[in-house]
């Protein structure tokens, strides 16, 4: 039996397996692509109203306030752009959507309400295209299906955009349990077996974000060059702490949570939920219930996760995860291309600025980043590895023995970069092989970082690295790299000044002053030349801001940025 709410019209089922969607069998084409796995791994998307009923109601959340906060979904509903991601496609940016698609979005839907995709054969190709947009612009992950096998029914109302279960996982198997206090004591592994995605694990969180914000070939989330060329706004790079802050975050980091019930062995105790688990008929054994939240989540790790500098953790973890996501995207696409399943070359996999620069005379060359391969061949983009040294040097400081492994990883990364330029656009097979070699090394790096501790010293170390010339292998002549660096400096500085992470937290005068200073670090004549402020909230519109943001890319002044960095480096601490 499957624990679902009574509103069957809104209940859908999904196969939720981040990477295991390929090996299904089935009869018709759609089912072959997206047919359910055996029932034990079948997860269902609940009605999102079920989520909102509690999570946007501070009264309902009263008992969990210490652990969760009072109304996280309100922030998502009222401020966060994720809730608008489909509404924008069909509403405000409809003209651009149609222009990119080459047809009116309405054509692929059954009715004017645009809730169900058309099953007509003559629009099948268009439906397929729109579905790939919806992988990011709605909650409809790869592999998820309607319980009746209706491939054209979205698994969550499209109008909700990227909604709760899009990131937290399909809730059918854990919805009943997750509101109980004993859920805090359930081990990570047991939770994930129920389809719950543990976003408190910063590696997982960064992975979920980058699956759209960087892209994922496996998840069919990939903005191709032809979409960009047709007008899709460029993806702006990704730095987790900055993007979270601007979203804004609807969560609190562990450090800012009070000593909630069940936190550690010394906190107020919570029951083991034995009776509940029977009633819910949920697959959580007694062994999955740990003594406390700390042990359920951090096991035997070094003590201190509750004291982690939250942004430092996010900056350094995402430094590695972003690179991994990009390498996987490139590798997966190249592998598919090598087998003839995808076109090659796919321009979106190269450094945009390699082609999209003005043709300068010789003096302009000095302003362009120097690369490893021969000049004149589109290279691996610089920005995904911009902050890599930050993560690497953090690990070495924590564990000197990791230096050798990191050097091997660097060698593999350089091999991938060389594969990109061994010939113009590289050879798909060679790129796939190089990415394949790099992937497990990056997995190991991400895993180690996730388990690492991020104290004040880690914050200072990372900051010093970024503001000291020559300390890290970062080419500031690249606009997207400069943004990654500037974002990281700002977020790390906030941690350094102990500015609360939680959105809407009250700041004292000193913190307020420090925050204002930090936010002015990369302003120039009262403007934001690096466009560090993102159109992330509902009151801003990326399409309106495009002319300015594209101009900023073309007019980037590396000399000015370098000067700003050295000014920050010269400031007394």
């Amino acid at each position, binding site marked *: 039996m499957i624990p679902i709410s009574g509103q069957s019209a809104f209940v859908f089922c999904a196969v939720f397996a981040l990477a295991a969607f390929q090996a299904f069998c089935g009869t018709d084409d759609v089912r072959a692509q997206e047919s359910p796995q055996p029932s034990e791994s079948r997860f269902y998307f609940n009605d999102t109203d079920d989520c909102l009923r509690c999570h946007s109601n501070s009264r309902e959340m009263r008992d969990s306030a210490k652990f969760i906060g009072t109304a996280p979904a309100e922030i998502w509903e009222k401020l966060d752009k994720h809730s608008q991601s489909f509404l924008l496609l069909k509403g405000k940016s409809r003209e*651009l959507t*149609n*222009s*990119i*698609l*080459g047809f009116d979005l309405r054509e692929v839907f059954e009715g004017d309400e645009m809730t169900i995709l058309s099953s007509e054969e003559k629009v099948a190709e268009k439906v397929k295209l729109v579905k790939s947009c919806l992988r990011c612009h709605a909650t409809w992950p790869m592999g998820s299906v309607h319980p009746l096998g209706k491939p054209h029914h979205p698994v969550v109302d499209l109008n909700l955009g990227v909604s709760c279960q899009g990131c937290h996982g399909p809730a059918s198997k854990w919805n009943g349990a997750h509101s109980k206090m004993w859920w805090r004591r359930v081990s990570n592994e047991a939770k994930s077996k129920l389809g719950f995605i543990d976003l408190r694990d910063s590696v997982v969180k960064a992975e979920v974000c980058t699956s759209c914000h960087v892209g994922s070939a496996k998840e069919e989330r990939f903005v191709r*060059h*032809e*979409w*960009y*060329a*047709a*007008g899709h706004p*460029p993806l702006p790079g990704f730095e987790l702490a900055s993007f979270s802050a601007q979203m804004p975050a609807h969560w609190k980091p562990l450090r800012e949570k009070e000593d909630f019930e069940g936190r550690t062995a010394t906190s107020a105790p919570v029951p083991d939920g034995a009776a509940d688990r029977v009633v819910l008929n949920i697959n959580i054994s007694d062994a999955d219930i740990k003594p406390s939240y700390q042990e359920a989540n951090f096991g035997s790790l070094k003590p201190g996760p509750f004291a982690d500098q939250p942004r430092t953790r996010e900056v350094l973890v995402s430094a590695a995860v972003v690179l991994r996501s990009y390498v996987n995207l490139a590798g997966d696409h190249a592998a598919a291309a090598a087998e003839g399943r995808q*076109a*090659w*070359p796919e*321009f979106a996999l190269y450094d*945009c600025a390699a*082609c*999209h*620069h*003005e*043709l*300068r*005379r*010789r*003096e*302009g*060359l000095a302003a362009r980043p*120097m*690369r*490893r*391969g*021969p*000049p*004149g*061949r589109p290279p691996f983009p610089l920005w995904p590895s911009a902050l890599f040294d930050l993560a690497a040097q953090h690990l070495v400081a924590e564990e000197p023995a990791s230096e050798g492994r990191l050097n091997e990883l660097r060698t593999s990364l350089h091999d991938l970069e*060389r594969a990109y*330029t*061994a*010939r*113009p*656009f590289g050879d798909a097979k060679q790129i796939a092989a190089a990415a394949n070699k790099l992937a497990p090394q990056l997995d190991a790096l991400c895993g180690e970082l996730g388990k690492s501790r991020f104290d004040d010293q880690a914050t200072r170390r990372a900051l010093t690295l970024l503001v000291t010339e020559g300390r890290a292998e970062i080419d500031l002549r690249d606009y997207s790299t400069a943004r990654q660096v500037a974002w990281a400096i700002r977020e790390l500085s906030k941690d350094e000044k102990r500015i609360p992470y939680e959105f809407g937290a009250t700041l004292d005068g000193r913190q307020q002053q420090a925050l204002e200073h930090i936010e002015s670090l990369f302003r120039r004549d009262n403007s934001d030349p690096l466009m560090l402020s993102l159109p992330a909230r509902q009151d801003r519109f990326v*399409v309106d801001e*495009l*002319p300015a943001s*594209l101009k900023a*890319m*073309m007019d980037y002044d590396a000399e000015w940025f370098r000067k700003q960095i050295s000014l920050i480096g010269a400031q007394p601490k």
Partner: protein
Amino acid sequence: MQHDPHAKAAAMLVSPEFQEIINRLSQGKDSSTSSQVYLQCAHCHDPEGIAAAGDEGVILTTPQSGQSQAARGIGCESCHGGAKEWLSQHYQRGISKSSLVAAGMLDTENLLARGRLCASCHVGDGVRDMNHDMIAAGHPPLRFELAAYHRKLTHHDPATARQSHWDDARPRIATSDFETRLWAAGQITSAQSALALLESRARRAASSAEESPASAPWPELSEYDCFACHQRLRPTAGGGKLLGLGLPTWGKWNFALLLDQDPLFLGDLRREMHKAFAAEPDSAERAVKPARAAMMNAYAEDISAHSVLRQLSKTIGDKPSWETLCHRYLGLLAVEKAIGDEFQKLELAGSVSPHQRIGFNRRRKEIDQALRAVGDSLSFADDKSEWPRALNTADGLTRANAALDAAAERLEVLQTYAERGQ
């Protein structure tokens, strides 16, 4: 000859700019040393050095500043042919051209032979290959047009002290429409050179999968339209069409004027080069062979200003592009000069009335101004940016094309003056 820029090639070899390009190119190649890179440069920049080193297996290296530059760079024999067999004869009276040619002197008075010679470096050929790697390292892109380059040489500019060491006055007077025949020879020989270059690139790319000094990058980006990729980022760049975007056009500069006659000369080559992003090198090599053969017979001896003007009176290709506009503009300049030459001959023969002269000069001045404005809009905006002005506005190319339509119409009227006296 001392005012000819070719004479400065030896000095160029020791310039910091030259060294910087070589360094950038060498740095990028794990397997290639700078002497291999230098050899590639030397085919055009240092043919004297190659000739001196060639037979003895000497490894040619970059000349060092301070060393003697004698016998380096571009010398007389680089263009006129090895002189061993004809040196003592060529200044003697009564010696026939055919016997000199038989002795190895190159016939630079033959416009096709001359064009081929110039294009072998200024476009490239089977041996000389200036590719996109080099452009990215700082070498200016090659955009050659024979008649315009002649004008650059023969027009004595005190600032650059450029001047050619030869004079085409004799054939200009003795034959009609010299300028358009020079222009046409340039079109044909550039296309021939470009095909030889493409064939060699395709062959080297196909025969050597590994990166080696002998291999060629593929796809070779300099074969394509620069501005297809090098675009400013702007909202809705593609004008709202999802499919078929992002593929650059092949052969826009060197085959611009063949667009309407592609099947005749290029056969399947253009289609082959537009398959996916680039054809496989071996199928490109196969398609280029018949094109090379067809191109050998492309030059018509009887080409006249009249026939060139007729060809250039309408838009080249489906819609104007920067490259086709440049060629149309340069072609019309050649037509204008040819008409001017012919009119001048009529004047010298005394068969022009003062009234005709005034009318001709007025009209020519107007056309001059109109063409100069188009030339301005097609040229690069400033010293720092290689960005033609016409690309800065949405309708820049359309307006330049319309201005050329009007100029072509006026040239037809101007031509009646040059024909009237005959």
